[in-house]
Every structure is written in C-alpha cells, then in structure tokens.
C-alpha cells in the first residue's frame, strides 16, 4: 500500500476538498497571470501569480465561494485595513478584487521560506524557538495596536523567511476591532474551518481557538483571543522532543495563563505575554509564577553561572596558593 506522509495527506485534503478548488481562477481582467497553486486553507486557495504591471511574483488568495458570497464586503474592507499594516513581521496585502465568477481575491507579497510547523523539526534550541515566538508576538501586538485581531494564529500561519525573518500570514480571517458585528449574515458554522467574519460564525482552528471564538460570538472576540492562540502555539513550540526533558514550570505557567478559559484571566496583551517569555528565556522570574527559594536559587545559579564559575575558580586558586 502506498505510504502517505502527513504533509502529503494535508496537501491531498486541501486540493481535493471541494469542486471549487478544482477550478483555477480566471484572472482575465486583472493585472495578474496564474502560475501555480501554492496551497489551500480553510478560507481560500493561494496561488503563485505574476504581476504584469510591476513585473514581480505575488501570492494571490482566492476566497472560497461559500465565504465570499456571504461576506464579500467585509473581505474587501478587512483587506484594505490589512493593507495599512506595515510591519516587518506582517505579510502585506497589495490589492483586493473580484473575479468574474464572483469570488474575492486579494494579493499579498510572495514569501519564500518555510512554515513554522515544518521548520520546528530543524530547530532543537529552546532559546531559538522562544526567540521566534517573541517575534510572532511583536507582529501580533503591532496589529492589535492598530485595532486588528488575527483570529487564526497557528504554526501553519507563520513563515520563517529565507533570511531569518518571522512572518505572520493569512490575515484574511482578521477582525477589525470597533466594527459592529454583522448579525444574521450566516448561520452557525460548526465546520471548524476558517470562514471570514460575522456574528454566529465559528472562526479559527480547533486546538488554537479561544473558547469565546469557539462559541461563535464575534462580539466577545478581542486581542485576548489572539493571546489564547499564542499560548497554544507556545505550547507547541516548547514541547520537548521525544525523550527530552520536561517543560519548565515558569513556561508551563505562562502557557496556562495565556490559555486561561476566561479572557479576563489571560495576559491583557501580546506584549505582556512576550515579555514573560523573554524573561523565562533570559533566566529571569516571570510574572505569573511564584517560585520557591530553591527554584529561585537554582535559576539565579543558572543565570549567573559564568561569573559564579569565575569566582569559584578564583577562590579555588587562592586556596591552592595559600596551601603552597
């Protein structure tokens, strides 16, 4: 029997998902030429396209017909909002438009690199993983500061670029804070896939989705829902390899705090979460874990092990010299 690895299974599930995916988008009347399909997610299919006017490759995402038909105006508005987010960790939206068949597309920078979920296998260092996580938090915090909540944060939506940059992708499910919800646009959707927005819709990915998102009440979703998803991502990032040690108690406390069921009990911002992660990485105490005396002594010894070793070496040498 043919062996199919997880990546191939995921690809097959994507490309044979529904009939709409079979039909390549008709890009006549747009400045773009279709090159290849890059992948398919819950919300749409991403193609590699050629921008004739600017002579460059771009990523062109075609929103699934069932989502676009109901919420086209919101897709366009959110794409425009995202286009204003200029941050090195956020893949910018260049353009948005409508295909002849009514499907909505938006055009993003073509990113070369590796998805975080795949890149983790070649990233054994915990400090390196935490560093990546902090950069993700920075980008998300920037979006929050501009009133945008991602709502579908997960390792698959983070790309590590060829030059070490960390990029948060797929802002198509984002919500602009302060927007009034659009009641009654669609009925509850228990699919677990990622539609766009609207009251009563389930948005996000099981396992990463905050409880208030899972309830489908978009009015309750704010930046703290992203904090929950970041906590779920952190849990993935710090999971030790098979046969490795345990996750440290401070990190476990950070994850638990970020993933608290009630938004009020979570970190209020992605910045606050990132700060605690940085402190844990640097061997400092974290805000959500009260360590005992032994843990504190152990942490300080680890943190200051180099000067401590130097002092001990110096003292040992003095003792030896005195004895001679």
């Amino acid at each position, binding site marked *: *029997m*043919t*062996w*199919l*690895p*997880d*990546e*191939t*299974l995921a*690809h*097959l*599930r994507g*490309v*044979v*998902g*529904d*009939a709409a*995916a*079979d*039909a*390549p988008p008709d890009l006549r009347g747009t400045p773009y030429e279709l*090159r*290849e399909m890059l992948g398919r997610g*819950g919300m749409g299919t991403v193609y590699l396209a050629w921008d004739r006017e600017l002579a460059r490759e771009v990523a062109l995402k075609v929103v699934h017909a*069932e989502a676009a038909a109901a919420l086209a105006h919101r897709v366009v508005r959110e794409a425009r909002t995202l286009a204003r987010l200029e941050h090195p960790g956020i893949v910018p939206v260049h353009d948005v438009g409508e295909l002849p068949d009514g499907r909505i597309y938006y055009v993003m920078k073509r990113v070369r690199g590796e998805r975080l979920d*795949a890149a983790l296998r070649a990233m054994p260092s915990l400090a390196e993983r935490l560093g990546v996580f902090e950069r993700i938090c920075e980008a998300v915090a920037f979006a929050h500061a501009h009133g945008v909540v991602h709502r579908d944060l997960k390792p698959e939506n983070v790309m590590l670029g060829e030059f070490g940059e960390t990029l948060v992708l797929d802002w198509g499910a984002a919500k602009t804070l302060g927007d009034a919800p659009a009641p009654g646009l669609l009925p509850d959707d228990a*699919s*677990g*896939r990622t539609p766009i927005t609207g009251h009563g819709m389930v948005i996000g990915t099981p396992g990463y989705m905050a409880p208030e998102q899972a309830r489908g009440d978009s009015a309750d979703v704010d930046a703290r829902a992203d904090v929950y998803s970041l906590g779920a991502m952190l849990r993935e990032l710090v999971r030790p390899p*098979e046969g490795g040690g345990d996750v440290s108690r401070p990190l476990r406390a950070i994850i638990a705090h970020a993933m608290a069921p009630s938004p009020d009990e979570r970190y209020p911002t992605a910045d606050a979460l990132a700060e605690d992660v940085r402190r844990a990485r640097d061997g400092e105490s974290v805000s959500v874990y009260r360590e005992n005396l032994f843990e504190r002594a152990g942490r300080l010894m680890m943190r200051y092990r180099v000067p401590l070793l130097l002092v001990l070496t110096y003292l040992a040498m003095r003792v030896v010299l005195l004895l001679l």
Partner: protein
Amino acid sequence: MRGDAVSVAADALHTGAGRFPITRHSVIGALDASDPSERRQAWDTLIAAYWKPVYKHLRLAWNVPREDAEDLTQEFFARALEGGVLERFDPDKARFRTYLRVCLDRFASNARKAEGRLKRGGASEHLSLDFPGAERELGHLRAAGADVDEAFRQELIRALFSDAVDVLRERSLAAGKATQFAIFERYDLRPTGGDAPTYAALAEEFDVPATQVTNWLAAMRRSFRAIVLERLRAVTATEDEFRVEAHELFGPGAA
C-alpha cells in the same frame, strides 16, 4: 506466520485482508449479518480500514513492543468478532471510530493487567497483513501526543487515502489513463519537502498543453475524492456520521 500474518478466530476473516472490498454502503450494520458472505465482506472492509490504526495505536499510545502489538491486533479483532462487542455499537452515543478506539483501549488495558496470560497465535485462521510495512511507517510518525483520538483518526485517514491512491492507480491504468495518473502522482503525491513541479514543466515532460495538465489533474482529484468518500461511507455507521466525517475531512459540501 509471525510478523506477516494476523490470526483471526473466525472463518469470516480468511481472505482479502489489507485491501478494501468494493462496497458503496456502510458495513457496520452487516458485522452480524446472517449471510456469511455479507458478514465476511463487512469484516474484511472493517479490518482493511482499521488494522493499521489499531496496530499503530498499540505501538505508540500504549508503547506495546512490536511482536506483542501484532498479537494484540489479531486478538483484538478476533475477540471483537467472537464477543460481538462491535455489534453493540450505538451510533447515538459516539462515532464508530471513537467507539472502536475506546474498545481497543479497554482491551489493551485488560491485556496489560493480565500480562503473560495472553497467548500468541492462539486463533485458528490467518490473515495476511503487512506488519513490517506498518512498522516502517511508524518510523515516520511522532510518538502519540495527548490527543489519542485525533492520532487514531489520522491513521484511519491515512489508511483510507493510501488505499484510494492504489485504487486510483489501478483504475487509471485499466482505463488507459496512465499519463493522467502520472501527473497526479508527480504533482500531488510528491515526496515530503520536494518542490512541486510547475504546470509548464509537467506539460513539457508529458508533451501535452498546460491546460491539459490542469484539466487532468482536476479530473484525477475528483476521482480520488470519490474513492475516498466511497471508503469512508463503508466504515462509518450511519449516513449522519458519514456526512459529519466527510465534512471534517473535505469541508462543506463534500458528501
């Protein structure tokens, strides 16, 4: 027969294991059918879909050594057949795969408690299954995480998809569509980490227009999806369960 074979306790299971018999309806209700051939087909279908998930679950979630896992796999299906456990499944309470996995966990727990009392190869009939192949696949998998139900489901999906690829290959060759399948294989079944060939490169390689490549690819995907759904329907208990599983697998409108 160790390693390559699994013993089963009933004559319902003596041929054809490892591949899905052709069926377009659920076989769960036929597990206790009075007609021997119908019953045999139901069990063949069930085992073809579930033996690898069962074996891998024992190896990864229960950390059972290889030879013991082979024995426990055969014992599990044999006892399920003898004891009528699976026939007692109630579709109102759980999905079939969840029920089967819970039965398996209970069986593995009891076997662990009675360790040493389980006799190997005690059953009378043998069913050829590719245990070495399953063992090679385990090398590609991570140890089971906390969500055992999801891991079990993933292995069921892998079994359904792997079988569908083999069936699609056979049907394509029989229908004179070897090139179409080759394009599907090159584009959608490429090795992990490999870059996908471009449509233009495939068009050049197979000496057809690029539009033909995309058309054939779309046709192969539709056939593949139809085969997967056919298999999924066979190993789910009810139409509702099938629709929910298909929805989760392929999204809205899949079934």
